[in-house]
């Protein structure tokens, strides 16, 4: 209720954009548009737009299904069909949804893909996912874009060259063949200019957590903010308008000295400022968030909001080097960073946003995030002397969200933060 009352213009804009996309998808045939399934990390939105295609993001469908309490049944359906209990639940949720008729989160049917654009930045599961989907959609064209890992904390010229060659000699000609549209570099450049602008705005938005109180929650609300830039609107005027509006609303909150908006209204007192590593749980998203805001904890930065691109270190799309910049974008998504880079990025967030603590939400089914999190946490604890907390849940499998366990752990963690605070104040 409270949230309804506070619905901002940016929220309305976002809803219109997303509803519009799903409507277009439901009418893709009538609109004569080709449909391109792809993933968020390393998404080539600007290129997809250049070919007038409509994007489908299977991860988004999975997380939306979880928020609408449908994922449990989908996952079970997939498990009946030889999918293991122990793998990424996004995949199983998607496969289950497909087996049950492929009706998307808005209740409209999702069309079959013309292209499966496999740019599997930062996670091998994506590769397996589209291998699985290819068997379901034999007529779809799979276009592979292999993004090299930033293993040595750098994007070398040979990595860029490898990706540019793939884009130029394989991806673009195959997109031309499927869509019947000739590649228009000037059009791509126009999208890149707009992408850069949206990236500037979103960086400014996430940087507002420097203020006290922080005007936003950069994790729980952050996942809404990254929606447009991640799900196909990067590179459009709509996205720029949305982020401009959002930024203006947030700056107004700063001016008024207000804290973040939560589902139960405005957070009154900011007691703890935290940085969170790892994706959220979607099946009990509201309950999960509530544990934090009830304790006066606001998330001032999170790694998850960088999964579709890391912009806070200054990297931007660049229309003067169109393909090179698409290549660099893919390589620069969070899970494509090596472990020391991830530690450096999170440490910078803790320092820049003056966080009181660091929490890892370890996701059972996501090795891309989870493998290495414990060592990262220890190093951050040792070098920054910041209290660290650790909880476990899952993305979309309701069986792995234990409310009482998580609540207990977080309560003890907040007690520890409280003690630290009072000790500091005494000193």
């Amino acid at each position: 209720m409270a949230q309804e009352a506070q619905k901002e213009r940016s929220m309305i804009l976002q809803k219109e954009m997303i509803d519009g996309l799903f409507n277009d998808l439901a009418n893709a045939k009538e609109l004569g548009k080709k449909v391109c399934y792809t993933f968020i990390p390393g998404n080539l939105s600007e290129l997809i737009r250049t070919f007038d295609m409509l994007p489908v993001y299977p991860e988004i469908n999975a997380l939306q299904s979880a928020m609408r309490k449908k994922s449990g049944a989908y996952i079970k359906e997939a498990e009946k069909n030889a999918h293991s209990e122990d793998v990424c639940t996004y995949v199983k949720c998607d496969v289950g949804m497909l087996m049950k008729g492929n009706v998307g989160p808005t209740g409209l049917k999702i069309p079959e893909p013309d292209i499966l654009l496999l740019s599997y930045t930062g996670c091998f599961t994506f590769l397996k996912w589209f291998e699985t989907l290819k068997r379901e959609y034999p007529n779809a064209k799979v276009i592979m874009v292999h993004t090299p890992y930033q293993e040595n904390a750098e994007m070398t010229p040979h990595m860029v060259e490898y990706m540019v060659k793939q884009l130029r000699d394989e991806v673009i000609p195959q997109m031309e063949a499927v869509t019947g549209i000739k590649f228009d570099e000037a059009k791509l450049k126009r999208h890149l200019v707009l992408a850069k602008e949206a990236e500037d705005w979103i960086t400014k938005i996430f940087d507002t957590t420097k203020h006290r109180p922080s005007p936003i929650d950069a994790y729980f609300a952050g996942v809404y903010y990254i929606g447009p830039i991640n799900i196909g609107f990067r590179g459009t005027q709509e996205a720029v308008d949305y982020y401009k509006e959002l930024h203006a609303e947030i700056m107004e909150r700063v001016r008024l000295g207000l804290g973040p908006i939560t589902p139960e209204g405005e957070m009154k007192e900011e007691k703890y400022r935290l940085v969170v590593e790892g994706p959220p749980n979607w099946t009990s998203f509201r309950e999960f968030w509530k544990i934090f805001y009830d304790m006066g904890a606001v998330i001032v930065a999170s790694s998850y909001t960088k999964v579709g691109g890391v912009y806070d270190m200054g990297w931007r799309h660049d229309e003067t080097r169109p393909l090179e910049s698409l290549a660099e974008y893919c390589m620069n998504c969070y899970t494509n960073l090596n472990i020391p880079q991830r530690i450096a990025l999170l440490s910078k967030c803790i320092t820049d946003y003056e966080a009181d603590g660091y929490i890892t939400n370890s996701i059972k089914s996501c090795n891309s995030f989870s493998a290495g999190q414990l060592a990262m946490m220890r190093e951050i604890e040792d070098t920054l002397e910041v209290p660290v907390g650790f909880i476990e849940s899952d993305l979309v499998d309701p069986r792995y969200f234990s409310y009482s366990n998580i609540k207990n752990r977080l309560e003890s963690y907040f007690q520890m933060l409280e003690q630290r605070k009072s000790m500091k104040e005494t000193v």
Partner: protein
Amino acid sequence: MNTLKEIIDLCKVQSFDMDFTRAKEWKAEKEGRVLVGYMPIYFPREIIHAAGAMAVGIFGGGDRKQIIKGDAYYQSYICHIPRSIIELALDKHLDHIDGFIFPSICDVIRNLSGIFKQQKIGKFVKYMDFPQNFLPEIGGVFYQQEMEHVLQYIKEINGIEVTKEALNHSIDLYNKNRKMISFIYDIRQDFPWRMSIEEVYYIVRAGTTMPVEEHNALLEKVCEFIKEDIGVPQDKIKVIISGAFCEQPAIGLIKAIEEAGCYVVEDDYMLGSRMILGDIDATTDNPLEAISTSYINQSQYSSSIYDVHNPKEFRLAKMVKERGANGVIFASASFCDPSLLDAPIFQNAFNKLGIRYIAFQYSENINQFKVIKEQVGAFSDSIKLWEDEPVITA
């Protein structure tokens, strides 16, 4: 080394020597020698050899290494091998190994490379990105650059600039190595009683811990021995093991499958040593290109290689036919995403093709196989009962 038993005993010791004694001795024998550890699955060991170094396979501690520190690095729902590799490193078993290579296989191995970097283990740590683009002028060139990067690291240690001649010589040695291993598998296809899969496993795995020249000398002798009609045939079905390419099952499990009524005529336990099918051209002016081309065109199917252009289920089905196998055992390490995510693809196809299979999971440190043995026994019995039925219907 005069009898087959002596060779097998030596290989058994070498395979599970967590201190890599033979490799370290080899290094100590001459100034400037370098050891390079590599993780599963595959790595082109030829280039290491040509650079005056030796590649050492690091496959975890299996059931021989108690995990104490490693568990603090990995959550319970991550497979076992990274924690056992970290344990080996922290307990100094990997000391004297100069550099470490983490081939691109999955997110766990990839992130483990970051932990090695973070912990500053070794003189270099290289995550080796194998191309998923299979055009020689795109993926092939990238792969060559990745290999050059590895050679650069070794050169920084020993100063050796690799020559075309040295590379061709190394390619030739590994061609011989793979050819002899293939020969052993081919003989076992028809006469699996001549040597158990456990013994074959020791022989192949030992090759990842000793100089290739020494391994080739042993293989030559083994090839001679198994040409002889040794052993006694038993009433067992023939199976293929698929999915166990990274974290290795405990030896007890490898044995249990054959004890439960199966001859394992093909497997992917030590896939890396057998990844390239056939010879790599050892006579070219550009040996790195030859290695890269072989990876692109002659690789065995694998869960870490994007396969849509050459679907893995049909490749495995073909292998079933060629090896005359009665069925397939899908054995996956617990929490092994690449293997488990492939399982529905294989199983859906095999249901349609009428190829019989069973599937189970294991962990390298578990040495209790009662349930698995019963499952395999029942599988073998059911196939024997149905032996008049055609095994493959498509």
